[in-house]
């Protein structure tokens, strides 16, 4: 039975108790180690209810990819990931005919050439069947029998033309294969697209998605994230770390410190057995937070100014 004939079961995680309300989602995400705020939970909840993909934008290192992984973890479902890059094409994103296998199939038939007419017809039908189809992530997510989480990572890296490939999948949850017909989803996947904002995405793509902007977390949330991810840290130091990072982000930096860098820094401070921050300790470990020479100089100057 080809997938085209299967009935469409448009259930994502609608029945799962974790997806019952935004508040329940916050709780469920916390259990898998992701601290979501009300906004994040609301968008996830709506995406599940409305069967729409989520487009997550924001600076690097604010937990965009992590969000998709956490959704998969809390739903206990498979995560199918499509990492985008320049030059990504149909054969890498959607599907590809297994050319070599088709070739072998034809060659296996060679011996009885005299009766080739009748055989060719059945062979031709056979050649373009699912057996010879290599499913790439988008088709794989559509074809999965249970609800999966599909992560399309860094979608801003593909060209505008490639972006259009995804539109059919995102809006209709189906893939058209000329030789085979239309493959419709057996169960609608939960789709998360992430973008680092390096280029403007097309209106068509944006229209098909719910939008979530993940910015640097608030002071309070960042403190909680530090406490959650670096359990050995003292509560006081975690607060100070969050304050200091927030303060650094206000400077005119080329690259502001991300959450993952905050965590690296917090871990380092724990290893160094620092109990409370000081300008000296911060200056000495600044290179964990800031990666540009100019940024380092600027921040060091600022901190030195405080000491004087």
């Amino acid at each position, binding site marked *: 039975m080809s997938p085209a004939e299967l009935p469409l079961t448009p259930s994502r995680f609608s029945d799962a108790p974790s997806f019952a309300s935004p508040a329940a989602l916050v709780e469920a995400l916390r259990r898998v180690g992701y601290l979501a705020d009300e906004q994040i939970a609301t968008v996830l909840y709506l995406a599940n209810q409305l069967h729409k993909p989520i487009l997550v934008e924001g600076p690097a290192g604010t937990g965009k990819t992590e969000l998709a992984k956490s959704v998969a973890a809390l739903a206990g479902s498979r995560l199918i990931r499509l990492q985008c890059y320049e030059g990504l094409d149909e054969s890498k994103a959607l599907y590809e005919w297994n050319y070599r296998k088709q070739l072998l199939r034809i060659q296996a038939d060679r011996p009885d050439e005299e009766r080739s007419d009748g055989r060719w017809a059945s062979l031709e039908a056979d050649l373009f069947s699912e057996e010879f189809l290599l499913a790439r992530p988008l088709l794989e997510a559509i074809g999965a029998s249970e609800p999966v989480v599909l992560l399309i990572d860094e979608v801003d890296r593909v060209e505008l033309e490639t972006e259009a490939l995804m539109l059919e999948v995102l809006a209709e949850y189906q893939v058209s294969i000329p030789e085979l017909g239309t493959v419709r989803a057996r169960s609608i996947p939960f789709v998360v697209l992430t973008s680092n904002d390096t280029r403007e995405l097309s209106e068509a793509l944006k229209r098909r998605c719910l939008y979530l902007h993940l910015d640097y977390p608030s002071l309070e949330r960042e403190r909680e994230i530090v406490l959650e991810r670096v359990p050995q840290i003292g509560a006081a130091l975690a607060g100070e770390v969050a304050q200091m990072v927030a303060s650094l982000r206000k400077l*005119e930096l080329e690259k502001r410190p991300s959450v993952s860098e905050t965590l690296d820094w917090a871990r380092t401070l724990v290893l160094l057995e620092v109990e409370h921050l000081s300008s000296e300790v911060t200056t000495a470990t600044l290179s964990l937070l800031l990666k540009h020479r100019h940024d380092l100089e600027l921040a060091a100057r600022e901190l030195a100014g405080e000491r004087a």
Partner: protein
Amino acid sequence: MIGTLTAFSDELRRAGLPVSLTETLDAVRATEALPLANPAVLRAALAASFVKDVTHQRAFDTVFDVFFSGAPPRARLDEPALAGELADGGQGGGDATGELDAASLADALADALSGRGELDLNRLAALAVERFAGIEANRPVGLSYYLYRVLRGLDLDATVSGLLEQVRAGTIESPPELDQIPDLGLRRRLQREGVADRSEALRQAIEAELARRLAAVRGAVPVARSLRRNLVEDVDFMHASRTDLAAMRRSLAPLARVLAARLARRRRLGRQGALDFRSTIRHSLSTGGVPVAPRFRLPRRTKPELVVLADVSGSVAAFARFTLHLVYALGSQFSAVRSFAFIDGIDEVSRIFAQSSSITEAIERVETEAAVVAADGHSDYGGAFSRFSARYLDAVTARSTVLVLGDGRGNYHPAHPEVLAGLARRARRLYWLNPEPRAYWGSGDSLIAQYAPSCDAVVECRNLRQLERFVSELS
């Protein structure tokens, strides 16, 4: 609800957001799918459907505050209870009638701003608006009038500077989360930033509260109209306020990234080169020696060489600053950039950009270090071009694209259009970017009409959107 949402999306559209039918439908379905008790959830749900670009968030928030103005429960005011709470907290407070007196309000404000108060900023904002705004339904005054009244009533600026002074002198306790930092300098720095952040948050809360109350007495649509603000990309360079300029500066870095990607892509695409025989054969190995996909050699497309002449006099300084910033942020997309600043004298500023560690720093240095004034410090285009031709003519070659940035207002100095024409003949292209509205060109002391014939194009460049369009066509 559908009626409200339609009016809401109309207003967003008028504020400049690209809102299509799909977005409105999503919003309607979202509100149906949600338990709507919580206004924060409603805001998140509508934002997810309507805001598809983070720079539009502010405009959205303003409209949202006006439209969904049923004051949220936490901001609902109950002064007696509030006074009671403060009294319980041992901070003095209300008298027998439950009225909050002026002194304890000032205390509550100072505590809230220094991060030690128990009072939520939103409630403080509601309280202040209640107390000082004195909104009259029929007076035709805008929100800024009431904002001014509330801020004066609270005496916010004086309180903030008083607090900062106390922090500097160390006569004020730090909020609990900073208490244990032994390094005094660092603690005070964080303390000061906390005060500034909270006062800004309070100001915004007051604005939102005022918008809500005005909408309640005047109706949402007229209030939204009076509050409509330009999106960052549509703000006029020549009339931008300080907050606008800061927002524009913040949006420059992402804009430069997007533009660089676009220019690089255009340079790569559309190249048809000669057949690359070696590569074709190499790739045919995986298809049994049949050259299924021919490979082509990619020709190099040359990057343009830029020469920028920027008028940095007061009236157009902001425009020059943004354009220079963008050009240098795109540095890798040009084979060389040389820049010159002028008012009535002219000076090469490329070296300042080379020496500085960041573009922002370089642009500040241009304003202080470049020798751009030769006589009286009023723009003299003719004079500046003549000096350029005399001193830096070598900079312009057949490969250079020359950009002149300025409004072309020469303060009645002679124009010398023949000098610019000479430059245009040497250069590959010469473009003039003018931050003035096209309608004003040629009026008063504008010399644009005399220079235009020598330019390949004179482009109106009043805001970031137009600047972006010009740069993305440049190659």
